[in-house]
């Protein structure tokens, strides 16, 4: 069971306290109406599936409840870093 560092609690806690929440840094468009069908499709459905570094979101569901970002290696399953929502991509 992986240990995950919550950047809000500043604690290393077991995986069962957290919930995965999909790829990170996909901001909801401010004005969706200006998006073409193709652009909207990309925003809604198209996700990265890298071998290696993956930027993803987690929620400390059974802790502070905050959503945060993480970089995890999809090959080794090791977390490189976690950081607060709103901080620049690492």
């Amino acid at each position, binding site marked *: 069971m992986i240990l995950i560092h919550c950047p809000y609690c500043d604690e290393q806690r077991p995986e069962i306290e957290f919930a995965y929440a999909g790829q990170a840094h996909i901001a909801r468009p401010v004005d969706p109406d200006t998006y073409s069908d193709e652009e909207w499709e990309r925003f809604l459905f198209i996700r990265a599936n890298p071998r290696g570094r993956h930027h993803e979101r987690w929620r400390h569901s059974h802790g502070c409840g905050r959503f945060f970002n993480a970089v995890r290696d999809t090959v080794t*399953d090791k977390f490189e870093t976690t950081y607060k929502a709103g901080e620049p991509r690492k």
Partner: protein
Amino acid sequence: MSGYRLPAGGRIDRSKPVAFQFDGKRYQGFAGDTLASALLANGVSLFGRSFKYHRPRGLLAAGSEEPNALVSVHRGPGRFTPNLRATNVEIHDGLNASSQNRWPSLKTDFGAINDRLGMFFPAGFYNKTFMWPRSFWDRLYEPAIRKMAGLGDAPTEVDPDNYAATYAHCDLLIVGAGPAGLDAALEASGTGKRLILIDEQDEAGGGALADPALWPWLERSMKALSSAANVTILTRTTAFGYYHDNFVGAVQRLTDHLPANSEAPREKLWRIRAGEVLLAQGAIERPLVFDGNDTPGVMLSSAAKIFANRYGVAVGKSLALMAVHDSGWHDVFALKKAGVGIAAIIDARDVVDESLLAEAAALGVAVHLNHSVIGVKGRHQVASIEICANGNDVRRSIPCDALLMAGGWTPSVHLWSHSKGSLKWRDDLGAYVPDQPNENCRSIGACSGDWDFGTGAVYDVLPTPKDQARIKAFVDFQNDVTAKDINLAVREGFRSIEHIKRYTTNGMATDQGKTSNLNGLQIASTALAKAVPDIGLTTFRPPYTPQTFGALAGHAKGALFQATRTTNIDGWAEENGAIFELVAQWRRARYFPKFGEDMHAAVNRECVAVRNSVGIFDASTLGKIEVVGPDAAEFLNRMYTNPWKALEPGRCRYGLLLKEDGFITDDGVSARLAPDRFHLTTTTGGAARVLNMMEDYLQTEWPDLNVWLTSTTEQYAVIALQGPNARKLLEPLVEGIDLSAEAFPHMAIREGLICGIPTRLFRVSFTGELGFEINVPTAYGRALWERLMAEGADYGITPYGTETMHVLRAEKGFIIVGQDTDGTVTPYDAGLDWAVGKKKPDFVGRRSLARPDIIAVGRRQLVGLLTEDPKMVLEEGAQIVADPNQPVPMTMIGHVTSSYWSETLGRSIAMALVANGHAMLGETIYVPMPDGTHKAAISSMVFYDPQGARLHV
């Protein structure tokens, strides 16, 4: 084999005899014996029948790597454990064990015919043979194969034992309490580190237990460790899996070795998180591959030493050794000194260390260098062996009653591999050893390839002048895989060891190839003319040895398997005969049968009572979220399809929630209590999901909004009072709220007191009748319910359950998200266009409602169905077709989502998703069901009181 108890020696307690049974026969051993050592001491040589060929098998090993001697242990009803290794079963008074995979008895086994027919059972036999015809599978092949090719029987009764579980944290975890592990523990114990030392055997010591010269050291070491406050020693504990971030799973066996069953837990699961892990699991001796190497009495050389030195048992009266490694010579010298007869040492090497030859000569043991064993005589026990000079067909026979194999050593890298540490090949050892760690972990002692057993040579199959195709030289004893099988797999084109493993099943038995993987690799390497590292190594996976389901499940069984949520009113429902159903972990009353009613009779009565007078319903499970803050209305406006900003305090609104893809995910009625405060409700099953979704948007998309979300689902008990007499019943009980239609209209909320309890009183209806949902602090739920029941007696107040709630809402065409919608239904599909704020610039899912697929013609739309036969209640989930006479497979145009008998309407009603349904009002469709095809007309979903006259009273 004619094993016997040596007159002295061993760690057994000869003053404590122990009586036990094997295959119904009574035996005696001593405290400290395993089932294996005690049976050996009684002269037993036959322990089981092999998996595929039903060949007679004896002990190969003395530890947890034992592949042959699998036994079942009976401890009374439900307490039956198959596939235990006899070498790990500690005997105690009353132990009742039996052999497996034989019928009618171990000595006379009909399945042994498979051995004579061996030519018909090559590698891949099952894949090649039992394929066609398909119909033979279920009736013939599968049952027959299961019976013939089996391990022990699966238990059939519920396990009455208790299992414990715990978490543990330490700075240092040492797995394996042999000399390497103990040395490391002694060193670390002085540092004050929190230390856990675990070992699978009943006492610590590992290899030292078979070396009397080390016993004084062992005793001193254990004394020092036992008295150290920072050291936890767990024996009879198997570290079965090594997971991420130094998380190690271990099972401790607590009571199986004790005579009587007790209420104490049988096993305990340890979940250990360690700062550092030291693996000191030792190494496993490798068998040699030659014709007849599975005859009972052929065993690992190290095992014979363990039986003699630890248990005081000689495995035979006259032992021969077949060695390619020095360690076997040392074992034989030790055995000879312990008084065991030695027939000869045969070594395939032409040169061995002079000191070995000198000691053999001094002890008077005959030596045959550059020779190999090429055959074994004896069926249930070794009688003699045939040896042959390598490369020279000169054979001779040596009488003996046991043959020891010293094939070199395989480091136990299992846990290291679980942790994804890398391995490197060492040609000199003919084995993989740990290379780079992936966790904060070190491998020490023999499991790292560091040992003082001497040196040896590496062989795939021992040299023999015999025809390789006619010999039975076993590689995997537990799965009955021979060298011939592996060669055949290579001839048939398999190249990767992963494929060869699966085709031959080498290493795929319950022992995961502890004694067979490396020999299999060597044979494949020779056959493919490729170096072993170029073929790879199969992956080790948890568990290291098989573990019980009980230990892994722990307390999570029966009522504790999953939490059951109950409302404050649940006890009343139970006392009043409710039949329950589980909804999103909530236990909800489904109906309240009276006087032996069945469900339909009860539901019909409950429905009529609501329509004619008043019904009472426990709605406490509805999800509730308190939305508070200056931007609360703006936030809801962005989340829901409906407009929220203009909603006045004191009023309610039906909210429809989409996901960003435009599909309905939840709905519920919500109330505005104040400009900055809303009381949201969600579906029972959607509460957690909706809160998570709202938090997601609030935290990550709109962190500028000043809004707080709080789950209040369990803070309120909610009692729905529905029916034309609801107001009359409530009026005298309420303080501070004017219940008149003018002052308190439909879809409004008021705060006040009911029976003196503070309440948020909603005037809402999920039934189509005049209705109220009374929210009170949870603890008052049952008290209020009972008061309403008492006060409502004059009106014939009737408690109703979820089934009646479903019928009443369907009569009004109210949807249930998740039943009438399935994650592909938009507001338009559901006929809820009116709930979508057309003038709103944005809300979650809005852009998607303009996607090409969403506005395309032909989408499935929610409609009502009226069957031609009013008595016919369609099956929910039944498919709908336009033409019942078309050929099968028919084109399906939709399906029934809800279907009930409506006592109020005196006929059946249904809801369905039908392609283009909204444009088909009045048209006929057909519903094929098992009992025939039923005709129905598409109708409005609102079957009862379409004008809503009954609501606005």
